[in-house]
């Protein structure tokens, strides 16, 4: 179930409002568009005007729904539904009138979060030739690389393990959008920058 769908379920009214954040993901993390300096900074500066959402050519920047309390109307991205595509000219940042989104000159300035692979769910770690997250990464070979090792108990096959480099990963979430595993959960997620790259 996507975060948005879960929020809708929440809105149906059987969970107290404080639990909303918990349902957003590990530690109540909301994925923000590029250029948010911190959660507090964004909440303080954002006037909920929606201009960043209008500017997004991929229509992935959305306003958080009203059940989100103080977050309502602030911009967020549901990566599984549609990730940030790291436009070269960052129209969302350019559109922000208050500097809630700011200081992005190039992709490497972005710090939306960091991707974390669920090692128990990732099929690449079992030797399946997947590595979708690696191939879709706009910063491949920097933010994510492949570590090659022999498959355990099989001298004829290798494991192609995607490895996230937290210093280079900007948290755009395209890997989350494209991951082929969804049940019981997506095998990769975005966590706040600074978190450990491995679950």
């Amino acid at each position, binding site marked *: 179930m996507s975060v948005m769908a879960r929020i809708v379920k929440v809105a149906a009214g059987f969970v107290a409002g404080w639990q909303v954040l*918990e349902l957003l993901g590990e530690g109540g993390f909301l994925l923000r568009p590029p250029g948010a300096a911190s959660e507090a900074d964004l909440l303080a500066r954002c006037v909920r005007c929606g201009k960043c959402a209008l500017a997004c*050519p*991929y229509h992935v920047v959305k306003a958080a729904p009203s059940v989100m309390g103080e977050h309502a109307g602030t911009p967020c991205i549901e990566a599984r539904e549609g990730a940030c*595509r790291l*436009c*070269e*000219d960052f129209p969302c940042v350019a559109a922000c009138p208050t500097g809630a989104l700011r200081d992005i000159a190039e992709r490497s300035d972005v710090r939306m979060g960091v991707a974390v692979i*669920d090692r*128990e*769910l990732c*099929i690449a770690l*079992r*030797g*399946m*030739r*997947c590595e*979708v997250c690696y*191939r*879709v*990464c*706009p910063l*491949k*070979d920097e933010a994510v690389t*492949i570590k*090659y*090792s*022999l*498959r355990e108990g*099989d*001298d*004829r*096959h*290798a494991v*192609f393990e995607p490895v996230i480099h937290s210093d280079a990963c900007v948290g755009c979430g395209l890997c989350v*959008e*494209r*991951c*082929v*595993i*969804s*049940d*019981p*959960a997506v*095998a990769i997620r975005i966590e706040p920058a600074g978190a450990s790259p491995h679950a």
Partner: protein
Amino acid sequence: MELSRRSFIKASAVSLAVAAAGALAGCAPQGGAPGGVTAAKSGTFKSVCRFCGTGCGVICEVKNGRLASVLGDPDNASNKGLNCIKGLHLAKILYGEDRLTKPLVRDDATTKGTTGGLREATWEEALDLVADKLKTAWEADKKRIAFWGSGQQPITEGYALAKFWKAGLLSNNIDPNARLCMASAVVAFMNVFQTDEPPGSYSDLDEADVFVTWGANMAEAHPVLYSRLTARKIAGAGVQHFDITTLKTRTSASADKVLVFRPGTDLAIANAISNYLIQNDLYDKQFVADHVQFKVGAENIGHAYEDGYDGSDVGKTVNDVTPVDFEAFAARMSTYTLDYAAELSGVAAADIEELARLFADPDKRIMSLWTMGVNQHTRGTWMNHCIYNIHLLAGKICKPGSGPFSLTGQPTACGTAREVGLFAHRLPADLVVNNPQHRRYTEAVWDLPSGYLDAIQDPGFHTIRIFREMSKGNIDFLWTASNNWAASLPNLTRFLGKSPEYQGVFKTFIVVNEVYPTLSTQYADVVLPAAMWVEREGQFGNAERRTAVFEKAVDPPGEAKWDVWIFLQVARRVLDGTQIGGAPAFDHLFGFIWDKDKDDFSGDDREINRRLFEEYRIFSNPSLKPAAAAINSNEGGQFDAGLKMENKQLAPYDVYLEHNGLTWPVREVNGTWLPTTWRFADGSQAEGFDEVGIAAYGKKGLAGNISFYKSAGQKPSAVFRPYEAPAEQPDDQYPFWLCTGRLLEQWHTGSMTRRVPELDRALPEALLDMNPEDCQRLGIKDGDLVRVTSRHGQFEIKASTARRTEPGPGTCFAPFFVEENLVNLAVEDYYCPLSKEPDYKKTCVRIEKA
């Protein structure tokens, strides 16, 4: 609460995720019910992946008559339970929402090219209509009918079809989509060895010291095989991988050395390596003395710009070769110095020399692997030759870990298209129509009167010729199966009638056997719903000569039917009134599998497959039929020599049911059927060497304990082939090279994989990979929609600088799986003059912001 929720997820995560994806390992096959008329409701069935030529073994798990999951077969030595994500999601290819389940008929040809215009019909109506149109066209002019088949048609299907078209209709206008991918490899195999398909096998991957990929993005196009290559690199000390390519790919990403060359100049690089071995006296002299004959071939052969190229003065010379001595061969090769190759190709001379020195090292085992970059090449046959030249000079062939290995892109391009003879010039088992002995042999197997097949001694139209003729209104009836020609052919602007001078597609009566609506069904007059993959029993033959059976696991949906049933229903109608040797032609050709009273098969899927295969097997087991055996051994002495048909020997059908496939030739030794891993290499048959073949036809004691017993004079040919420029070169108007190809998540034109939600999610769009400098110069940003225009047509697509592939300046790449961005509208249809395989890798285009 949070803790308990998380721990629950962790505990069940692995099993759920893997089961959902279909990859539960350790599930032993149970055999299930034999492939009968009605599939068992539940059980497990052995199968082979439907996609690339690797041939991964899989197990189908059926629950309540529905394919629930497909798991990698842990008992299959070549994939050991592994799959790529396409194979992992195989179960879902059957269940797209828009499966075709009823015959469809188009009443108004002006609706062609649209999504409408087709109505449902009964099988009786559809079959009568198809048969009537075919019979009328056939009786009027055999040159105006054509069938376009596939390297995805299982072996017995292809065999039955070839028999119907060649012996029943006496037409050679039949060609497979393998013409678009493997024809250059085939022609070179026949020119060099006089027998098709690689001498080595996947086992070479486990022992090589050096891998060379020539125009092959194996990491994406052969995912599990590339895992095997990578395992060898990790496990073996100092194992190296050279990637020789026109643009960096995900394969280059893990190669030790990447040689990026200007399109078309790979011939110069390969020749420079051969020349280096010769000039420095580093070739294997004993091997060359014992095993190699030398030739030079026709040169300055131009390009197939005009429809009449094949029959032109130069077009008629392309197959000419002249035997020469080693000195003359060396003299021709001497032009190709390292510096000359470097100047032409843009690759550093030192890099070419480094690879040449490895070929010169007698202790290095080297495996060359190639696919479409070499084959889809206006000098594709020549480039195949150039690779063989190196391996023959270096003596690196037919030895474990050493050999040139031509990869295939479809599950049974080898097993069906090549082996049963679906080509316009071929008969089953490497036989060709223009050889009288081959025709006599085929007549003997098929019980035809001697001379009956003389009517088809001239080859028919190859693929591009079929569609060029159709576009001009010269084909009245076209039938296609297991392909999507309206998306996969080059130059679709011409072939889909989008150019005013070529409107033939709207006039030809087109029949398409399909499982889903595709671009091809939009041009069909009749669409016949077909059984897909494990909805019938079948067999694939993969790139390493491995023949494997896949069992029927579920019934086809609705009224969908097995292609063989469709072919025979039409054959019965069309051949009505035709006699062979005084008997009704249909009964003569297909009476052994058909019940006239029931107007249906005279057995279940398993039994029909068995009977078809057992007849087909006579081609490679002449002793099963005295008349065939007599021609094979040239008993009457009326031919120059015997045929050695056993060089491709296949085992009885039931033997394959007990194995995960067997690599031919398969030999019966003390009552056991043993495969061959290394053809022409002497040694124990039980260990995979060609002991039985060499004992029958070869010589012992030659260099490397090798004996090329099928080659003329028992010696393969090294043929000098020069560099000649591609058909188009970048200029001011069309300054970019456009290369097209496949990516891991999607397969071919996407008609199956795009219907799998997980794969569609993983790669939902086609992008044009461009060099960032080019983008900057043209004012194109990542994600911008661009228009790509060639001399042939144009398409629109989003540009990408995300480096899925990494084209150098002046080069771009696009995959061909998305019909909304139909790249083949712009791709050239110029083909290799020898193989007639078109070049999808070197169209010159301009790129503008749309």
